[in-house]
């Protein structure tokens, strides 16, 4: 299939990072932090572009770099999910959409934990493990 998610992140309402996890051990994590951060500008652009029309939650490809492509997904509560993937050939839009949907459900389950305050850093072990599983089966 040729998709590999190398980084997944959750960004909060004020563009504060709540969770950044890199799955590629060969690269420096800081590089992905930088990529995600720059992607936020594109997210802003896309969110304010269509005036009045309802926006799909899935934002599509935000921008390409040499080896990677960055995809975004936003929610009505201003929480953004940004992933960096390595893919060869055509873009597998449907698979990415599915991944975001499951990622969103996973996030909702984590927020349901009464000991987690929204806008905190996500430190849940369950979240980590589940995300790993999902990344493997993209």
């Amino acid at each position, binding site marked *: 299939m040729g998709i590999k998610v190398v980084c997944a992140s959750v960004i909060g309402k004020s563009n504060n990072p709540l969770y950044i996890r890199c799955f590629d051990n060969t690269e420096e994590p800081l590089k992905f932090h930088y990529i995600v951060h720059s992607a936020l500008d594109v997210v802003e652009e896309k969110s304010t572009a269509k005036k009045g029309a309802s926006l799909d939650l899935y934002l599509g490809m935000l921008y390409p770099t040499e080896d990677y492509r960055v995809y975004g997904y936003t929610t009505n509560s201003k929480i953004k999910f940004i992933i960096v993937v390595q893919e060869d050939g055509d873009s597998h839009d449907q698979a990415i959409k599915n991944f975001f949907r499951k990622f969103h459900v996973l996030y909702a*389950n984590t927020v349901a934990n*009464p000991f987690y305050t929204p806008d905190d850093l996500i430190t849940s072990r369950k979240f980590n493990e589940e995300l790993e599983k999902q990344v493997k089966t993209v």
Partner: protein
Amino acid sequence: CGAVVMAQKGARPYDRIGEQVFAKVDKINAELFTLTYGSIVTQLVKDYEDLGEVNTQLEKMGYNIGVRLIEEFLARSNVGRCADFTETAEVVAKVGFKMFLGITANVTDWDAEKKEFSLVLDDNPLTEFVELPESYNKLWYANILCGVIRGALEMVQMKVEATYVKCVLHGHDASEIRVVLKEILTDEIPASMRDE
């Protein structure tokens, strides 16, 4: 051969009764229930700060629920008098838990005198989505259930102590409540009403 089949059916009528009663009662949304209980626990933790005290408060709340819940249970389930404590255990596990939480518990680990048993819960709607932070080892999150058991059984003339011994939130495979029969009460006013 026919007699063996009859004996088996007779031994587990409570599963069936539990299902029947569960089908008849009103249901509410599970997430609403879980989140409500979660906010009760976190508020108690904020107010009392000492986790042991939170456990005590949860148990007391459960007790107050139990003494009232038993009436609903007896009215809806039509279960007759239990012959002995072993039957009580089955009724609590199969009919009581099924009716109010939608789950069945398993009764295990009876002691020699049949005065103590364990209730094993494989899953529990109260603890859905919950992850305890590291410093919360002393907290028995669903301790309200121990109080409910104690309150309900006291109203049917049994004084018991119920305590959590294992909990899935602490990493165990299943949750376990140990119930110990202290004494059979004979027509006394329950302690809660006597003190007031």
